């Protein structure tokens, strides 16, 4: 029964994808029709070559890969450290700091964007990837909060046992908490990969030379003043989402296993 629901839902989710694929193989002159045509009259496979010809797409992919990998690693390292402090250590100010961290998520970034830009400008870091990467090596409330939730679900006796064995706090973080939090770390990695890969406003504001641009920017260049090249946009969007999908497909088996295989051995 549940299998049936899954298949039906999955089928529903694949329809839009199929439609994107069909759109990506049409020509600009025939891309829109009423009622919509599912099968292109001629298959314009060259659209996929065109996106690499019209936009330095390969370059953009490489730039995005660099930024994304740095972001993911930085996020995992820094957020797990900070989350450990919030979840497993007793220190004065912990509760207050945690609430302040939550509060920083509540102000819409649209009003802090320009002051932030000015900060990085004074550090002479405009048109480098530092403003996109460095903040991700310094915690970040969304994913720190997530890891805190997971860390707080691990029984405390494990820490106490390790302490009696003489482990330092870092030892507990490294040998107790991290190994038990693989699914959570995987979730963080997946989120960060997706978020960095698709980030538009960061690269938009901080990168000024074209040879540093990322895919999210490249996807916008199919919007002309009076019309959008939908066929190329769809082809490029499909190509751009492929790495994220592949990462998810292969990464999940390491981390998200069936319920039967896992368990906390106390």
């Amino acid at each position, binding site marked *: 029964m549940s299998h049936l629901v899954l298949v039906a839902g999955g089928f529903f989710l694949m329809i839009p994808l199929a*439609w994107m694929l069909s759109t990506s193989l049409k020509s600009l002159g025939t891309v829109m029709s*009423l009622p919509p045509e599912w099968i292109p009259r001629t298959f314009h496979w060259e659209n996929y070559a065109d996106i690499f010809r019209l936009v330095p797409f390969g370059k953009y992919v490489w730039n995005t890969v660099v930024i994304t990998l740095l972001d993911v690693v930085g996020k995992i390292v820094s957020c797990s450290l900070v989350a450990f402090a919030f979840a497993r250590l007793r220190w004065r100010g912990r509760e207050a700091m945690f609430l302040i961290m939550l509060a920083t998520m509540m102000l819409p970034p649209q009003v*802090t964007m320009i002051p932030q830009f000015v*900060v990085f400008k004074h550090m002479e870091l405009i048109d480098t990837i530092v403003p996109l990467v460095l903040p991700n090596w310094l915690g970040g409330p969304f994913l720190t909060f997530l890891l805190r939730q997971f860390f707080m679900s691990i029984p405390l006796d494990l820490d106490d046992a390790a302490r009696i064995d003489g482990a330092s*706090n870092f030892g507990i973080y490294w040998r107790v908490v991290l190994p038990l939090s693989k*699914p959570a770390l*995987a979730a963080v990695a997946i989120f960060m990969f*997706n978020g960095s890969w698709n980030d538009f406003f960061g690269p938009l504001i901080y990168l000024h030379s074209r040879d540093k641009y990322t895919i999210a920017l490249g996807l916008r260049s199919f919007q002309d003043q009076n019309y959008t090249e939908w066929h190329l946009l769809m082809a490029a969007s499909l190509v751009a989402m492929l790495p994220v999908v592949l990462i998810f497909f292969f990464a999940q088996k390491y981390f998200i296993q069936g319920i039967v295989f896992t368990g906390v051995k106390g």
Partner: protein
Amino acid sequence: MIPPSSPMRRREERDGWLFASPWLLGFLLFTVGPMIASAFFAFTEYDVLTQPKWVGWANFDKALTDDPKVGQALKVTSIYAVVSVPLQILLGLCVALLLNTRIRGLQFYRTVYYLPSVLSGVAVALLWRWIYAPNFGLINSFLARFDIVGPGWLGDKDWALTSMIGMSLWHVGGGIVIYLAGLQGVPSELYEAVRVDGAGRGAAFWHITLPMITPVLFYNLVIGIITALQIFTQALIMTNGGPHEATLFIVLYLYRNAFQFFKMGYASVLAWILFGYILVLTLLVYRSSGFWVFYAGELKSR
């Protein structure tokens, strides 16, 4: 158990700040300054290009008493959040439970359900325009098979907000991943224990699964509130606030003030009003968490 003045406790005190230092550093370097700046701008007339002029509470006065768009924006934003957040949480949890079983092709299904969250930007706009298209769209042509005339969705002021809520469900993939990760933390011994007791699957869910994933439910609730009340990009690319300001969400309106109307001071006031709104809701949820969120490893003493 351990006396508060022991060297071990003092070390813990020190290590707490040490472990939290990456965030503290980032907060001091890149976050707190811009936040203070925007709080200052709220009391000024500021076009982002010339010096801000101090105007005291004038921007607050305008926002709270003299601008009907603020009321409209807060209304549609609240409706959006109140409906979409519970739906996202429920749907995400249901799908995650379905995906947490052992069936053939599980890896494939999980990817399929995560797929919508991967797609972003302008392509999504075109996709949804097609799904919601009044005559030949995916939904209305499906309804037409049963002789139902579907609404105008995004182009209809009475349905545009509903359409945006529908779109938000498309992105539950992220929530699903979190639930799946949370479900991994449920020790299988617990299930074996209830199985020995002869309890059914329903009881196992209510007494084991649900309590064990309350930490991630709490997370999804708080983050859901924050992101739903700050909804922006979808509105910008799909409806641009229309029709008839039916989807004029508060962040869209403050963005217009900041980047189109050169009124950063007024935009900052709107941002801080939203900040206060979210803060109050979050604190309520946070205070309530003591009653319903179960942490296996909560630090009780301080």
